[in-house]
Structures are given as C-alpha cells and as structure tokens.
C-alpha cells in the first residue's frame, strides 16, 4: 500500500541552537498506529508539530497525500492541516464555549473564512458533530461548557474535534500524560478503536513504554532529536528501551 505520510530527513534547529530534531525519516501507511517514545525533550512534540507545520522545520520535507509541505503556500498548509487531526496533552479546548462548538471547530478548515469566523456551520456538520459525540459517549455533555467537563471527558472532546476534520491522520501529543491510569486507558481505547474502525493512521507520543506496546502496531524511539528505533513492538528489546531512555539528556 502506498504510504500516506513520508517524512524525509526532517530537521528542526531552534534559534538558540538546540537541535530538537535531526534527520528523521520514516513512512507511514494508512491505518498504522505508531507510538513515538522517548524522554521529555527528545523531540517527540517537535516531530508532530513539524508534520502539521505548527513548527516550521529547518530542513527536510514532509509529504502527505502527495503534497510536499516544504514548498507549500500558506493556503496549502491549511489544506494539509485540515486532513490531520491533532490531540494535545492539555486538551486545548475553548473553555467558555459548548462542547458541540468545540467539536465543530474541526470543520473550520472546510467552511469559508467568514462563515467559519461567525460559527455558521451547516446542519449537516452539526449532525455529524453530534453523532461523533454520541460515538464517544458524550451525548449528555453536548451543550455543556467545555470547562464543566472532567479531564477525561475533555480529552474525548479533543478526539471528537480531531474526528470532525474527517482526518486521514491523527497526531496525538501525549494525550494521556495529564490523566489518571483508568481514564488514560479509556482515552487510549477510544483513540485506538476509532482509528482502527475508520482506518485512520495515527502517531501518538507516549511516555509509557507499556502503553505503547499495548496499542501500537509500530514503535518509533527518539533520543536527542534522532530516531534510534523504528520497528514492531515485539522487536523492542529491553536493551533498546534502556538505549532510548538511557541517560538523562542533561548528563552529557
């Protein structure tokens, strides 16, 4: 099957000189569920943000659905972004508006600028948002304000917002790092189930190796901005884990 995402020698050097990402290359096929593991500061977040251009890479290229993002115009970048849902550690919902509206924000990339700005979403979009909420068990919360929800519920709204984009790829940046183990499992189960059912490819940044091994079909190990492992979960040996997590970055 043809890869939907090709990451080629992607690099990011911040203006203070730190190389957050150096020469990372991989391909992702449709429906793959890849976990990125590594220490904090290993470049996991930067990798995801370079893929959807929230962070401007300083080298390399990302090609998604046949579009190369390095030379993409601002408009093309928006077209790329709307096909990639993103989920955050801090949920990043708009606290003061309803859950439904937060989910509808996933459609912003598809409606005209003025209609989107005024929040005039079509009936069809609203129905779809509602059915996504139902699917995630948030039917009762539809009209509540986002800040009335618990952390786990907010993260499910985050997933719903990403799904509302009808994405081909979901980028999840530490989606369970702020949640307790039980809630974390619910979130990972939901994310995993939906990606499998809808055939959405997913890249998840994770702290916990165990969680990564449970869900992922593929594991990418990052260390100091470099990709040091790329393979199936069963190939991730303890030696490799200690290599990825080896010394803390500030020791050297």
């Amino acid at each position, binding site marked *: 099957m043809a890869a939907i995402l090709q990451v080629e020698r992607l690099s990011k050097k911040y203006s203070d000189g730190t190389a957050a990402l150096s020469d990372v290359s991989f391909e992702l096929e449709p429906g793959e569920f890849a976990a990125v593991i590594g220490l904090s500061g290993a470049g996991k977040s930067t990798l995801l943000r370079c893929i959807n251009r929230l962070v401007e890479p300083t080298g390399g290229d990302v090609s998604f659905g046949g579009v190369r993002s390095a030379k993409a115009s601002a408009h093309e970048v*928006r077209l790329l972004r709307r096909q*990639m849902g993103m989920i955050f550690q801090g949920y*990043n919902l708009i606290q003061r508006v309803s859950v439904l509206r937060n989910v509808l924000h996933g459609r*912003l990339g598809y409606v005209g*600028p003025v209609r*989107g700005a005024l929040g005039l979403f079509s009936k069809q979009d609203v129905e779809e948002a509602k059915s996504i909420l139902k699917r995630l068990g948030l039917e009762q919360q539809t009209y509540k304000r986002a800040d009335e929800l618990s952390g786990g519920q907010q993260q499910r709204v985050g997933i719903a917002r990403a799904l509302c984009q009808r994405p081909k790829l979901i980028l999840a940046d530490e989606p369970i790092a702020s949640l307790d183990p039980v809630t974390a499992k619910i979130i990972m189960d939901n994310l995993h189930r939906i990606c499998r059912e809808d055939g959405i490819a997913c890249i998840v940044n994770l702290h916990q190796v165990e969680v990564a091994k449970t869900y992922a079909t593929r594991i990418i190990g990052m260390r100091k901005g470099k990709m040091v492992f790329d393979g199936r979960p069963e190939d991730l040996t303890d030696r490799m884990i200690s290599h990825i997590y080896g010394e803390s970055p500030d020791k050297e």
Partner: protein
Amino acid sequence: MKPELATEMANDLSYETALPLHLAEPPQPSKPRRDPWLVGAAWFFPLFFIFSLWQLNFDYSQLAHGTGKMFQLFAQMFPPSLVDWRPVLEAALQSLQVALVGTAIGVAVAAVFGFLAAVNLFPRLGLLIKGVAAFVRTIPTLVWALMFIVAVGMGPVPGILAIATHAGASLIKMFSQSIEEVDEGVHEAIKATGAGKLQIVFQGFLPCVITYFISWSVFRLEADIGESAILGVVGAGGIGYQISNNMRSYLLPETCFAALVVFVLVFSVELLSNWYKNKMNLK
C-alpha cells in the same frame, strides 16, 4: 568583646579545627547588594522635594490664609441653588451622552486594533500598533479635547472625539494584553484544524477574552464619565462648561448644585460598575 562576636569567632575556630584544610573556608553566601540606582533615587527625591518647596515659594502664611478663604467659599456655596436646574441637568445628560458615545467608539476601534496589536497573532504589526497606541495614550484626554476644539469647533463633538481617541488607545493596550494571555495551546489547537486567521481570532480567541473586554470597557466608561464632566471646562460642552461659567461669574450656589450633580452622576456610575463587577466575580 560583644557576645555575638565571641560566638562568631568560636564558630570560625571550630570550623578550622574540624575540617581539613582545603575545606576550611565554607563558601560565603553572597551578601545582597544595594542597587546603586535605588540608593540614588532614595537620595534624589527627598532632596528634589525640598528644593521644589524652596523654588516654588511655598508660603505657609498663604496656605493658612487660603484655607480660611476656602471655607468661606464653601459657606457661600450653601445652600445650593436650584434656580437653573433645567440647563444643569440637560448639561449633565449631555456629559453622559458624550462619555457613552465616545467610549463606545473607542471600544469599537480597540476591538479591531486590539487584535492587530497582539504580538501572538501579529508579531510585527502588533509592535507597531502598540507603539502608536502608547504615543496616543500619553497625551491626556484634555489635551486631545483642546486640539479637536481647534479642528472642529466648540461643543460636544470634540469631547466625543477626545474621549474616543484616548479610550481607544488605552483599551488597545488592555485588549491586546488580554489576547496575549490566552493559552498558546488554544491557538495551536485551532490552527491545527486548518483554520485561517479570521477564524482563529473569532472562534479561538474571542470567546476567551470577551468577558475581559466587557470588564475593561465598563471600567473605561466609568473613568470617561468623570473625564467628560471635566472636558466642558475647556469648552467641549456638558456640565463642566456650566460649572466653569458659573464659577467665573461667582454664581456660587449654582456652582454647588452643578458640582453635586457631577458627584451623584460619577458616584452612581461607580456603584453600578461595582455591582457589575461583583456579579461577574460570582459567576
């Protein structure tokens, strides 16, 4: 020898005997240094104060004499005269209208330029607009009023323009600060959906800042009502004009009535805005 000194020395000795030689001197915690600028300022301002008293011929007998006069003046003001209550109340209403219209225009201007001035949305343009707004803000409303009177003539219009100008420039600062305090994660999340700038502003930022915008605007309206009452003194209409006219013709009881009206006006607006603030805090 002082007892503290003795123990200090004893401590020093015990250190030297107890520790090997290369550790004999424990690192001294660095003493907090006095900031030379602060020391300079602490000397300068009291000296300048004394110099100013001397330079301005601050005369204590004048103060004593004047205080007596002041009380006489107050005595002459009472009882307040209600003879021309009608023009006074009309002028008060005009002051209120000037404040309301001026502030509303200022809010509208600031709502647009506040976003353009926020550096997290418009990094370069933001700094430029902030700079211009800061410049406009340093010129007091009264001075703006004098300039607009020259430009468009006396009456309420220059008052409205002056208040709109100054309120707009002040609110641009407040609004843009509120926008800059919005969590960067919110910005990222809306951007990541493929939304354009207009959508990011309206759907992402506006819901986060709208209550701050309203609070700042109410706060500003409160200040502007006081401001517009004064503006009349320089000829920009309203109740200030009545007061300064009455005062010039020594119509003291009439002045007193107008001053009381100003007091009631400003005080009731303050009560209203306090009520509003309490209500907002409860939510």
